[in-house]
């Protein structure tokens, strides 16, 4: 438990030490939302229908950029050996990094959501339900994204490979359920009405965390 905390604090410190990095992520979210706004300004559309896809696609792409340096950083700065030699199990490294990714992505998502409500005038839905959906969706996103980031950090052209590997698995498990639930919330449903989706997202959260716990040894081992 202590090891997880140490890794978590170390990661958070790195993320926030360099203010420019966080600023860039925030800027990117603004740019993505703005580009959706521009794209939809010239055609007719029903805001209610496109709101939830826009939100989740924005979350996905802005969050992905914060995932990509998680393991790459260690390789580039040569701290990887030190980390692996330290008396910490690989799964603690995984969970520590997962927690810090989760926190950073969640912050980015809340910021994106704010920008979304500024750019798109839409009636505010049940916010508690929306936040719960975002939190459980982000757990799965960070859990899987962390493993894929570890895989792609060992590949050439890792920045391209991260989305290539992440999209087919993540979009069709967590994101599709989250989009379905979120659009119901925007149409006025409450959390109890989307329990089915919530249950599936939670199931994938557990599955991804279990996969990370079981397989991280094989990724970091070589």
């Amino acid at each position, binding site marked *: 438990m202590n090891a997880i905390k140490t890794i978590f604090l170390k990661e958070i410190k790195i993320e926030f030490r360099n203010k420019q990095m966080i600023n860039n992520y925030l800027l990117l979210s603004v740019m993505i939302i703005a580009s959706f706004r521009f794209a939809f300004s010239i055609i007719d559309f029903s805001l209610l229908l496109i709101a939830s896809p826009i939100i989740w696609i924005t979350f996905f792409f802005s969050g992905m950029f914060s995932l990509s340096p998680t393991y790459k950083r260690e390789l580039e700065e040569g701290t990887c050996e030190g980390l692996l030699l330290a008396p910490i199990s690989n799964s603690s490294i995984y969970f520590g990094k997962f927690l810090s990714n989760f926190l950073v992505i969640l912050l980015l998502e809340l910021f994106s959501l704010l920008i979304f409500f500024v750019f798109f005038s839409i009636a505010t839905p049940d916010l508690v339900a929306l936040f719960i959906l975002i939190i459980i969706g982000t757990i799965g996103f960070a859990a*899987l994204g962390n*493993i*894929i980031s570890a*895989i792609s950090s*060992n*590949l*050439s*052209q890792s920045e391209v*490979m991260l989305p*290539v*590997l992440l*999209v*087919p*698995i993540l979009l*069709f*498990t967590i994101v*599709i*359920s989250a989009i*379905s639930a979120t659009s119901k919330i925007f149409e006025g449903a409450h959390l109890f009405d989307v329990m*089915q*989706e919530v249950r*599936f997202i939670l*199931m*994938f959260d557990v*599955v991804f965390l279990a*996969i990370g716990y079981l*397989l991280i040894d*094989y*990724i970091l*081992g*070589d």
Partner: protein
Amino acid sequence: MRFKINIKDLIFGVAIILILISIYLAFIYTPTHTTMGDVQRIFYFHVASAWLSYLAFGVTFVTGIFYLKSKDFKWDKIAFASAEIGIVFCTLAITTGPLWGKAVWGAFWRWEDLKLFITLVLWLIFIAYLALRANAKSKVSKANLSAVFGIIGFICVPLSFAANRIWQQYHPTVIATSEGSLQSSMGMALGISVIAFTFLYIYLLISKVEIDTMREIIEEIKQKVGG
């Protein structure tokens, strides 16, 4: 070695004979489908290709686990060969499916149909698997990382299928009608074509693994000769 080649040729022969039988069954033996007409005859090889791709990806998944447990490159070779064959037959399944769909539904693709959707996802996942292998930096990391990715990808597909099926309102009607009103002769024709394709798969897998092994040996010799 000689014995092995004979087995491989034998399997190829069996596959060819079974394929010829199943073509006969599909076109002449089975009756024309009452509602869909002759175009329903796509069914036999479409389903066989889809089955083959699931089998091949399943083999990649299982051999991935074996590789991680034993670190024996033999398993990695089989996993890779199987993934490639799976991609080939998955491509065949998702190109013949729309042709059938166009004739029966009047549309090439139905995005709300779960079976089509999930098969496409599986195809994307294993395309990504091949991309991962192409971008790996060393033999060991290629084998490790691709095994992990293959396992993750394959686990998620049935889960996602089960999860989405419950709230999905559109059931693939074509599957329901073709299997619901499946006559026994049609069932037999389908069974034979599935078995034929399974033999074809075994033959292709052995060939592919042999080729990859040979390529590796040649590379090794080249290095020795060059140095």
